[in-house]
């Protein structure tokens, strides 16, 4: 099988792993908020404070726009997809799937769709073909995640 189109640079590798660490903090913060307020509130507040924080960061960093031409309107809808995710998981959390089943099936849906998107080059993102090594890494990381999800939090 062919190797990936480009090798992963250490900086990208570390940034993605660190972003995962940020996600575990977000789950803790937003989950604690949901324990006191409604699930809507636990998603509404971080979107509100996040909007303010992003505005401040944009004002400070003043990042250059990559292209002068306006992108198509649908590229602004990523936030809707993210907000619907919160609502779907709040429904499945209270079903027989519980937290572990919700996370495990979510991982499956995420990885399958990502591979499909990479192979087809969906949404104007670079097309890439995963190699045997990528599938081995994927299997190991998902296996480890499933061990943690199903056996890690029970004493």
């Amino acid at each position: 099988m062919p190797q990936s189109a480009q090798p992963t640079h250490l900086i990208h590798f570390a940034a993605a792993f660190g972003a995962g660490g940020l996600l575990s903090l977000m789950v803790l913060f937003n989950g604690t908020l949901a324990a006191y307020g409604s699930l809507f509130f636990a998603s509404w507040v971080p979107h509100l404070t996040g909007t303010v924080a992003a505005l401040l960061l944009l004002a400070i960093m003043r990042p250059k726009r990559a292209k002068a031409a306006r992108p198509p309107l649908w590229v602004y809808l990523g936030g809707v997809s993210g907000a619907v995710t919160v609502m779907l998981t709040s429904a499945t959390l209270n079903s027989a799937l519980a937290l572990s089943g919700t996370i495990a099936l979510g991982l499956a849906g995420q990885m399958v769709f990502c591979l499909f998107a990479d192979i087809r080059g969906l949404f104007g993102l670079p097309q890439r073909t995963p190699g045997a090594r990528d599938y081995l890494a994927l299997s190991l990381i998902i296996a480890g995640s499933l061990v943690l999800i199903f056996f890690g939090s029970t004493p």
Partner: protein
Amino acid sequence: MIGFAALAILAGVLVSLSRQINGRLALSTSAMESSFWNHIVGLGFITVVAALAGGLFAGSPAQAPWWAYLGGPVGVIFIAAGSWLIARIGAAQTALLIIAGQMVFGVLLDMWLGAPGNLWARITGVALILAGMWVSRTGRD
């Protein structure tokens, strides 16, 4: 049950869909601007749905500890990072490494907070994840 399973899978698909759309926006603008639009559009959407469904301020959210309100700024960095990475290392690699980081830091956070857990399961899980990351890093041209 099958219906809920389908919803849980769909939720995972939407996580990657959201990151891909944000990544496409970052290609035209910047990662931080893409994170801004993700948050303000999501805020508008949740506000409308919550207004229709009601109960946004139910419970006792004012009693939550102050640090529980810090998820927003952390999320801005998280979304910007995902938008930046996906065009550079692909959707699958981005998702996989984020999952690895979330799981490993999640275990550290749980242990630090004293959450109950099985030590051997934690060691096995983290070891498998680190092995997967090692496989992913080595042997590339």
